[in-house]
């Protein structure tokens, strides 16, 4: 029941609100699914900078298992869109070497659950090289990972590993919730001088949104990547704040809409960045609403919600009317897909947390 609500929640309300800031629709604005928006962003980055290259499993002729890199090898050639051997650590390790040689590799990990063979290269090498070299080496590698559940996949294809990476200094971790953000944020991630883990909410790949494809629509000057980590208030409200990111933003917006019908004015903040976290925007919001519910698919235990709860509590202790509540995955492995809807933070579970917070 709740799951159907999620799927039907994708349209109007969420998108209009979520895409509002990019509403200067010119002749180059197109309505694209998120996967196509990322593809357009990659194409733009590659056309702008010869050093940008893509590497991953099946990303060339096939265009990736989700077709995110569709057509790019035909356009840019096999030296810039590389079908790599089937070895994730190898992909990351060679990307580090390419970055040392001056390239800007954007690598694709085929699914969230397959990133772990590369965990060592990401956490002990990629994240630390700038620090270890006292700033002499920059390794601006972007790691694209389709993540999250809700697509009926078999095991190891529905994970949300962001907390495991957020615990590691040296990495930046972002995740778009809309097609427009996906187009902009992938380009900003590639422009970042630091390594970026770009988490793509695979359940939202087919959600369409207006994307401004004009050059002026994206701030990509020398510091254009900075707004990558700024959270966006996608719906204003005065009674309670919901913080969400990636796949859960649309669900949070749907929940806010239902709550409105019940007389509750709920604000929704799309964090956009898991590391760093834009605590300023959250604290400002919670300072007004006095209540916070954090929503993510990742397990709650040691999850981003725990960090957010601690930081917002430190900043807003006297404004809080209720404890910060979390809606997220349980302390279990990701379950079989037949029962994943019960595991995922559904609209009903979000509303349950909203009610508990308001009743506190």
């Amino acid at each position: 029941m709740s799951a159907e609500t999620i799927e039907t929640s994708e349209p109007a309300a969420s998108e209009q609100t979520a895409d509002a800031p990019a509403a200067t629709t010119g002749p180059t604005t197109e309505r694209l699914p998120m996967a196509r928006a990322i593809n357009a962003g990659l194409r733009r980055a590659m056309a702008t900078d010869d050093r940008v290259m893509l590497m991953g499993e099946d990303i060339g002729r096939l265009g990736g298992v989700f077709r995110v890199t569709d057509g790019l090898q035909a356009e840019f050639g096999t030296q810039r869109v590389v079908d790599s051997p089937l070895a994730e650590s190898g992909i990351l390790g060679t990307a580090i070497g390419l970055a040392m040689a001056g390239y800007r590799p954007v690598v694709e990990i085929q699914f969230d659950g397959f990133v772990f063979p590369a965990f060592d290269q990401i956490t002990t090498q990629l994240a630390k090289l700038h620090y270890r070299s006292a700033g002499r080496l920059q390794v601006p590698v972007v790691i694209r990972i389709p993540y999250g559940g809700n697509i009926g996949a078999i095991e190891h294809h529905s994970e949300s590993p962001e907390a495991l990476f957020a615990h590691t200094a040296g990495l930046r971790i972002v995740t778009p919730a809309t097609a427009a953000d996906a187009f902009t944020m992938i380009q900003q991630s590639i422009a970042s001088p630091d390594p970026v883990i770009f988490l793509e909410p695979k359940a939202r790949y087919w959600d369409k949104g207006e994307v401004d494809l004009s050059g002026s629509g994206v701030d990509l000057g020398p510091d254009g990547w900075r707004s990558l980590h700024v959270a966006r208030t996608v719906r204003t409200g005065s009674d309670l704040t919901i913080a969400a990111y990636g796949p859960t933003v649309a669900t949070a917006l749907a929940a806010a809409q239902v709550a409105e019908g019940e007389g509750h004015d709920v604000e929704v903040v799309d964090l956009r960045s898991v590391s760093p976290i834009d605590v300023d925007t959250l604290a400002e919001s919670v300072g007004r609403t006095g209540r916070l519910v954090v929503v993510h698919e990742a397990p709650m235990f040691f999850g981003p919600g725990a960090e957010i709860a601690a930081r917002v509590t430190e900043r807003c202790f006297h404004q809080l009317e209720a404890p910060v509540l979390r809606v997220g995955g349980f302390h279990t492995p990701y379950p079989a897909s037949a029962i994943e809807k019960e595991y995922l933070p559904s609209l009903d579970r979000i509303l349950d947390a909203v009610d508990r917070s308001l009743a506190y």
Partner: protein
Amino acid sequence: MSSTETPVAPTGTTELSWPDPCEVAGTVRLVAPDGSRLSAQALELSGHATYAAAAARTTPEQLRAMYRDMVMTRAFDREATSLQRQGELGLWPECRGQEAAQIGSAHALRPRDHVFPSYREHGVAHVRGLPLHELLHLFRGTEHGGWDPVAHGFHLYTLVIGSHTLHATGYGMGIQRDGDVGTGTDRDRAVVAYFGDGATAQGDVNEALVFAATTNAPVVFFCQNNHWAISAPTTVQTTVPLVERASGFGIPGIRVDGNDAVAVKAVTEAALDRARAGGGPTFIEAVTYRMGAHTTSDDPTRYRERAEEEAWSRRDPIERLAALLRAEGHADADFFAAVEADCAELTAGVRTYCRSLTPPPSASIFENVYASEHPLVAEESAWFAQYEASFDGAAPAGGHA
């Protein structure tokens, strides 16, 4: 082809107990342990005459330079070990015994080539022009790195075994994309990844070989088989000679006497020439021996026999090259004395430098975590600064409870 002038084995041991693994067919050896060049007949039999011909072009000056580098590396290594024993360094990984493998291969490099070392390649660092004392920052605990990897084409030491072989391969893929391969000009360059016998068991090394083979990357995989991965003999890592691994990856493999600097240089030169020309990767197994402990925290008496160390001490790479220089009249007493004087100067400087290294400012904890500003690091850094400042002027006695 036993070395006829081998000293008598110590009581209770025989040379036969520890046969020379470099006396196996297929292993390139150009200079015997006694310092004599192998005969034309022997080279004909081994099929290594082309390496010998290349080695014959190594000038006396180059031979003397290699000898000097090997002796200075050993002197530095001994000094660093002493500094650790005196509490000046936290740890030191000795390279004693591996000087020919390191200096011989490094002498095959050109300035624009890049080296990705493990953590024992002090001799390679020296040849690359890295002032050896700069290696001490890492081991004194004042920095994680301590040198400019780009300035000398010598990357930071990598303690996670084998991880850097992938970086070397990726760097080689970058060189390909730069068009710096196969032009037949000075523009051509290549990469050498140094690693040990233990590292060959790592997934990353195997993935590096796969990536290098399938992309034809200009990488020389230089494996120093020093027989011991801390306490594990090579038989724990492999059931076949390591060089045989290469063919499965589609990479040419060559096994060389790692204590024969002349042979190592010839073999590495050929591999580097091939890589720069666009011929792709080569795997070199340089058979040598770690005469010292794994690091100063290690105790080899717990896992290997003294007799083995003694057998290898009779194959010492420095003595071998010294014997060659003497036999061919390339060095006299003045030369050897001058090298010793250089060593004394080097070690005195290293000792002084090491003791002058002080801890960096505590605020540097927060520097270079990111290449660009980061709100969390900035916040924690600011908090730490005010916390530190809160003690200014306060009486430290009694703490701050």
